[in-house]
């Protein structure tokens, strides 16, 4: 009990000092901290505790990629493929090529031709030949044929799943570019599960703008307005809206797309030179420029529609061939709208519609209030516990209080070193461990008193107290630890923060309440040579 090797004393003191040093940056102002951090080597743990969104304010938005939308796009693409193949093979069909849900169907009346079509389509379903190991990937769709001439192509589950996975990857890329354009610091964008994306933007004030940026697919298409006498199967009736979202009218727009948003290389907000209206200036890539040049040359005098997510932005008349590879979109924008549209066009279109399935936004004011409230609670709890320990255990209480102080410092240091997120429930967890941390001391002290009452000598009572209480301390703390671990793995965000503080608190309790107190009591014993136990 009382033989503490020097190295042990030194390492306990060093550990406590280190913990102090680690938490110092958290108390500095942000700019001071960043200045100092620049001068220090990168490995040096000179960073602040990470505050959760509930404390620093910000937006937490969970988005889901619409799998039905992904399937729909895939069915559209498949339908185009089928159309192309049948045309290439000169196979006659009756009626159109239908697509719904995850099925494309077409009616081929002639049996021989149908046979040819099915074989050709089955090849299409297996795009990759067997790899070196002879393993073929499963077909992307199944071709069914019925004697009455109906050929059905059904997309397989794995193909849709695979496409959703790729859509999520793409979505993350696009969202990152869009959020970066907001100019916020350190947004966190990550995949969550099979079809979700989590977007966390700290310190954001205007979540409406963020949500708008996230919620717009931004699929830009240049399509011709159909000539009178079109067949209804080849056109979409699309509406045009004004600034406030009131419909202005509708256009019959060809289903065929001339040029798409993915062929843009740049988009910038600007003002029209004549009217002074806000516009978006864009540039095509080589392929887009050529294509646009060709179509505009062939259709001079006709109107074309600039379509964004199925809505007509504007439908100008082609005055002459546009071959320069650049152009301008004007469509009754406000400055902000022109700005946002160019951000969206630069970032690219989302591969599928996104739905917000969860949103948690905390304003910076409330976050600060929560920090203040948490601090007050922590101070009050500390003062109460410290006073109570002092009145109950005197000098031993003082030792316990010193250990308690180091314990709190260490929990913070642990949070900083792990770069774990401190949340409001996390603060509650720390306050809770203030109450619980002294439990180990209480167990030890009560045991010492008991042993002393049974007539043991001081030194033997102290020794027995520490030894016997230790097993109970480990036992009782491990039950709480089990809970902390489970909470960590099951919880998210705030709850996880609670689990981390609780778990860290338990680990440091054992270090401070057991080892440190023991050291202090040992030193005290050597120094004062007491004749009776002071508790």
């Amino acid at each position: 009990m009382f033989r503490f090797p020097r190295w042990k004393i030194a390492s306990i003191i060093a550990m406590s000092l280190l913990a102090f040093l680690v938490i110092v940056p958290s108390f500095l102002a942000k700019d001071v901290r960043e200045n100092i951090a620049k001068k220090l080597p990168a490995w040096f743990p000179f960073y602040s505790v990470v505050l959760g969104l509930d404390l620093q304010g910000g937006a937490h938005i969970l988005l889901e990629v619409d799998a039905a939308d992904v399937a729909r796009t895939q069915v559209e693409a498949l339908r185009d493929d089928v159309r192309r193949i049948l045309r290439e093979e000169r196979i006659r069909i009756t009626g159109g090529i239908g697509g719904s849900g995850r099925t494309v169907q077409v009616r081929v009346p002639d049996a021989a031709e149908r046979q040819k079509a099915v074989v050709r389509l089955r090849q299409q379903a297996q795009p990759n030949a067997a790899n070196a190991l002879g393993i073929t990937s499963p077909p992307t769709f199944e071709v069914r044929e019925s004697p009455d001439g109906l050929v059905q192509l059904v997309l397989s589950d794995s193909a849709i799943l695979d496409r959703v996975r790729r859509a999520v990857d793409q979505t993350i890329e696009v969202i990152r570019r869009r959020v970066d354009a907001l100019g916020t610091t350190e947004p966190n964008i990550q995949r969550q599960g099979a079809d979700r994306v989590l977007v966390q933007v700290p310190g954001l004030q205007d979540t409406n703008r963020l949500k708008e940026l996230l919620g717009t697919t931004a699929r830009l298409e240049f399509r011709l307005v159909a000539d009178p006498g079109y067949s209804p199967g080849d056109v979409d009736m699309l509406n045009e809206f004004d600034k406030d979202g009131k419909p202005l009218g509708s256009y019959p727009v060809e289903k065929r797309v001339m040029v798409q948003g993915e062929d843009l290389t740049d988009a910038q907000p600007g003002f029209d030179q004549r009217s002074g209206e806000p516009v978006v200036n864009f540039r095509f890539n080589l392929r887009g420029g050529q294509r646009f040049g060709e179509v505009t040359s062939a259709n001079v005098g006709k109107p074309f529609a600039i379509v964004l997510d199925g809505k007509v932005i504007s439908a100008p008349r082609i005055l002459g061939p546009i071959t320069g590879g650049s152009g301008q979109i004007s469509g009754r924008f406000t400055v902000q709208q022109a700005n946002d549209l160019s951000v969206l066009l630069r970032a690219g279109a989302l591969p599928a519609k996104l739905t917000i399935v969860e949103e948690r936004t905390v304003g910076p004011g409330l976050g600060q209030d929560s920090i203040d409230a948490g601090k007050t609670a922590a101070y009050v709890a500390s003062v109460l516990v410290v006073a109570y320990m002092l009145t109950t255990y005197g000098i031993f209480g003082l030792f316990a209080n010193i250990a308690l102080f180091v314990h709190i410092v260490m929990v913070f240091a642990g949070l900083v070193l792990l770069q774990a997120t401190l949340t409001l429930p996390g603060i509650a967890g720390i306050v809770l461990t203030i109450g619980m941390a002294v439990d180990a001391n209480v167990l030890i002290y009560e045991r010492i008193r008991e042993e002393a009452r049974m007539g043991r000598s001081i030194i033997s009572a102290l020794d027995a107290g520490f030894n016997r209480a230790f097993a109970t301390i480990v036992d009782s703390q491990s039950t709480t630890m089990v809970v902390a671990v489970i909470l960590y793995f099951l919880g998210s965000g705030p709850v996880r923060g609670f689990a981390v503080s609780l778990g860290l608190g338990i680990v440091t309790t054992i270090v401070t309440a057991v080892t440190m107190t023991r050291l202090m009591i040992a030193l005290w014993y050597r120094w004062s040579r007491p004749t009776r136990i002071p508790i």
Partner: protein
Amino acid sequence: MLRFRLAPDNMKFGFMRLRRVTYPLSALLSILSVVAFLTLGLNYGIDFAGGTLMELRAKSGQADLVTLRALGDKLQLGEVEVQAFGGDQDVTLRVRLQPGGDAAQQQAVQSVRAAVGENYEFRRVEVVGPRISGELVQSGTLGVVLSIVAVLTYLWFRYEWQLAIAAVIATMHDLLLTMGFFAITRLEFNITSIAAILTIVGLSLNETVVVLDRIREILRKFKRMPMPEIIDTSINAVLSRTIMTSTTTLMALASLVLFGGHVIQSFAVAMMFGLVIGAYSSIFICSPILIYLGAPSQGEPEKSGP
């Protein structure tokens, strides 16, 4: 030096006699909890029920509760719960889950913003869609079940079966009463409440373990002592510790309730209740069970210290 003590030294109180009072009492409370849980149910927050929670602060003057309550009818959002807290300018506004999937929830937020956005600052907005709330129910339930299984496994390895069963019954008792507490007080039940409940399980076991460890120690020392006496001796020995620790933890929790802000309040209140129940059950529920189950067979008596 005069010291402040809540439990006298050398206390010899016959706790086991009290089981004739505490068992019926706990049975009654347990039944009450089950009945409350089944009839009243829990007051699920948006984490589990879905919907929207907004915290508003009036930009000038007081929050106008009447106008805010009327929003539900005006915007056709169904029932809108408005609660004032803190100063006169702060309110929470809860909109129930709207029919029509995830997009409908966002629509509801938009319409509230459009209606009162000029006069109120939106300090917090939480929207939980129908599917997420379903998933949270699943993971919450899984969390509770897993913790119980983990804790049972721990107890099974750590203690003889009599002690393990006693600990399990005590833990279940605490869990049941806590659920009853949530049902009767209508305290909002959220994901953080699950965290509170699991922490209660941890704390309650902590108490139980301290008592059981002592019982086991005394069992080894005094093999011929009758069981009620062993338990009473053990409880009297650890009583001052139980009181000390419970008091310090209660102090910490009380300061959270009073000063920690309204977001954390229900969390801390639930935990205070659980702490008291946990201490009570470790003494009055867990230990007397051993009288009925009998003493575990003991090997060599533990060597006493030097």
